[in-house]
């Protein structure tokens, strides 16, 4: 049964991933023809326009290009950057750890804030703390991350003369400095997700706490802690895990702005620069990487969901 569910889930994921790759592939091909000429002038990547078209693979039928591109991508060949002339895969390999680390910390921070606060708000429903927490959550969803980042750079600099380190600190060179450098951006990224997760945790827990078995637990004379955490939270936390999967695109999207502000050499910063430089192989490569990651993580989350909760089936 579980296996059948997983196979069906996989069958749904494959076409989605294929369509997503088609979108990734099509986008740069929608550029008006003269952009290729512009690129030629800007980067002197090729001798003439025909060579450039050939290099970009624009001289063959569309579907042939797509199949070839997918085939090469599957073998780990995403072409080379028009700007640095290095293989895109190699460039991505260097930058991926930074973004992955940032996203991981952001997710952990979001969970660390959201679950305890959500539990508190649900256990004390309609109390002052519940109202404060809920309003703060909506506020957290409303404050733009780039503004928060700007304030956290500008205000400490004015008040205490403190400035964030410019230039990226490698983990190998200075482990503590590296973590400190990544922590602030991760907190800013985590806040918005924390707000969404907190609202869901609260909502789910409230629903669970109205169940009969929870009343039984109260009637048995269990301590509030045992009722809320053991009987309540355990059953409420499953949808929260799913939302965590849907938060990943949010967090990855946020890294575009955050990496740019904090000067972190991650994948999203790479994408941003590539867009400004019209470096299409890089744009394609980053998009492909990001989309595949999101689809795979969501697949993993759904599988986890099914394992954790035997009631869930398609």
């Amino acid at each position, binding site marked *: 049964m579980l296996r059948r569910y997983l196979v069906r889930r996989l069958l749904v994921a494959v076409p989605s*991933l294929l369509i997503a790759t088609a979108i990734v592939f099509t986008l740069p091909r929608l550029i008006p023809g003269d952009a290729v000429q512009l690129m030629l002038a800007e980067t002197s990547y090729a001798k003439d326009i025909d060579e450039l078209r050939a290099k970009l693979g624009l001289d063959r039928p569309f579907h042939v290009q797509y199949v070839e591109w997918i085939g090469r991508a599957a073998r780990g060949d995403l072409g080379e950057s028009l700007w640095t002339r290095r293989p895109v895969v190699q460039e991505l390999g260097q930058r991926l750890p930074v973004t992955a680390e940032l996203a991981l910390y952001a997710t952990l921070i979001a969970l660390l804030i959201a679950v305890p606060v959500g539990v508190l708000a649900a256990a004390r429903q309609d109390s002052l703390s519940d109202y404060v927490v809920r309003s703060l959550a*909506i506020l957290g969803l*409303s404050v733009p991350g780039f503004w928060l980042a700007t304030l956290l750079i500008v205000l400490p600099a004015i008040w205490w003369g403190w400035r964030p380190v410019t230039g990226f600190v490698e983990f190998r060179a200075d482990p503590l400095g590296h973590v400190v450098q990544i922590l602030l951006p991760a907190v800013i990224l985590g806040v918005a997700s924390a707000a969404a997760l907190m609202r869901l945790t609260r909502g789910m827990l409230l629903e669970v706490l109205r169940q009969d078995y929870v009343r039984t637990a109260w009637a048995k004379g269990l301590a509030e802690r045992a009722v809320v955490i053991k009987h309540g939270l355990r059953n409420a936390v499953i949808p929260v895990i799913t939302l965590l999967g849907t938060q990943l695109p949010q967090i990855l*999207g946020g890294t575009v702005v955050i990496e740019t502000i904090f000067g972190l050499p991650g994948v999203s910063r790479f994408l941003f620069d590539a867009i400004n430089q019209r470096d299409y192989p890089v744009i394609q490569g980053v998009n492909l990487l990001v989309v595949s990651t999101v689809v795979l993580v969501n697949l993993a989350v759904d599988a986890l969901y099914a394992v954790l909760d035997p009631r869930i089936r398609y």
Partner: protein
Amino acid sequence: MTSATLELNGAAPTPAGARPRPAAVRWALAAARFARRKPLGAIGGVIVVAMLVMAVFAEQIAPYRFDETIRGARMKPPSAAHWLGTDNLSRDMWSRVVYGARVSVTVGFATIALAIVVATAIGVSSAYFGGVWDLAVQRVVDAWLSFPYLVIILSVMAVLGPGRLNLIISVAIIAAATNSRVIRGATLGVMQSQFVEAARAIGCGHARIIVRHLLPNVLATIIILATIGLGAVILAESALSFLGFGVPPPYPSWGAMLSGSGRTYMLRAPWMAVWPGVAISLAVFGFNMLGDALRDVLDPRLRGGR
């Protein structure tokens, strides 16, 4: 639609025989009742109205034009003459924030209007016709949803080029994908109703069933999605303007005011870094609060994620 909305708002039905109250009075009463039941939502509503007024009457409200340089007032802190201070080009911040509301409102409303029309077409048709169409359309929606919104919007902008119209189109594509899911779900719910079955039984065509029976019943959902969506769209617009893909300068957009050349002066004039962000946060907060409250009042089924 009017009477349905009012009833859902909790208005008591007019007693039989009594003369019905004029529409304006009924709306005012409904608004008052809404404010009493959902004070936070009412605060959101006030913020939203204030923002709309700022956008429409920017010329009358702002003491200066958005690009007017004031002699001898470079980077002055907030004062009676310049409520929010002045920027590095000697322009009045308050006036720029007021004009900035116009960008957020026009881009926000245009984007959400486009997104909602597309989302409704996709969501309702996907739910109504079902089968292969539904399966295919939903896989495409899945694919769009697996892109982080900033990543895909920036990629689309890389193709289309920066500018207000392209910004609207690229943000609307993403918003449409997200909202179409919810509209599809709401339509599926309505399709279970007996009146849809009855309409089919008496031989109504597809168009009549969709327009007369399905659409009015998912309208509440659409209004809520649009309200909450406006907050998200304003946030997206500001992020894109911040990254330099929005409305070109010198026209003030809140996001753009926080980026570019201004950033180097923020250490000496921190108010330049504060007010545009406050404006964005307040606007988004207002739409979120209003949307949340509207959802509770209009459509309790959507409350799931709270």
